């Protein structure tokens, strides 16, 4: 079963990416490939990516009648922001939570674990809508 691990990091977590202390910076960047390798060795990795920090985001908001409005910045004005995600294939939620606990994000991060939509169900619905 596929689950998505959504990794929300706070400002301190994002700051580690180009931390002035080289050892901290290196620790941050070397932990992720190790995690990916562990996922791969377990046959659990489906997909995943890191996102550039929130200030690089643009957001499109619907406006009644008018075209979508493009704004700088991420969607939500929260302390923690999406920093990356992994899609994993594991037997159940307990196993997904185990992998979520191993995500090498800094303390202060939040990992949301959500089942993916079953592709078959979504495709069946979509096929029903085809002319």
């Amino acid at each position, binding site marked *: 079963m*596929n689950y*998505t691990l*959504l990794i*929300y990091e706070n400002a301190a977590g994002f700051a580690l990416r180009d931390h002035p202390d080289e050892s901290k910076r290196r620790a941050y*960047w070397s932990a992720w*490939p190790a995690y990916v390798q562990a996922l791969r060795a377990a046959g659990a990795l489906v*997909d995943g*990516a*890191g*996102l*550039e920090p*929130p200030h*690089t*985001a*643009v*957001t*499109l*908001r*619907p406006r009644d009648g008018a075209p*979508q409005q*493009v704004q700088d910045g*991420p*969607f*939500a004005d*929260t302390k*923690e922001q*999406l920093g*990356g*995600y992994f*899609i994993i294939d594991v037997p159940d*939620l307990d196993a997904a*939570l185990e992998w*979520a*606990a191993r*995500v090498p*994000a*800094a*303390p*202060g*991060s*939040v*990992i*949301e*674990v*959500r*089942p*993916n*939509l079953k592709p078959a169900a*979504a*495709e069946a*619905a*979509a096929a*029903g*809508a*085809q002319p």
Partner: protein
Amino acid sequence: MKFAILSYETPDNFAARSDQRRDALFGAVFRYIDEMRRAGVFVGGAGLDLPQTATTIRLEEGVRRVQDGPYPDTKEQLGGLFVIDVADEAAAIAWARRCPREPGRVIEVRPLLPPRT
């Protein structure tokens, strides 16, 4: 250059997944994916199940807290994401504009980190 297109949904949009609006809702998304595939920009993505199926782990120094429900605790919630590979941000925003419009749906576009060697 790769970008993530993040689609945030209202409770009503999530509800539409299981009522008579379901076929139209998913149909529009699949046609959008087909378009991206045809243009050769589609890399991947995932549709997420309903927010109430989420579980959240908070990592603190030496402790972790497991909670039912999504993060953050906002009215709109992430409903799915697409990854596309396009020339620049303007092209990414152009594709984000084509994402099927639903009432209240907000789209965030963010560059992916380049792969590190």
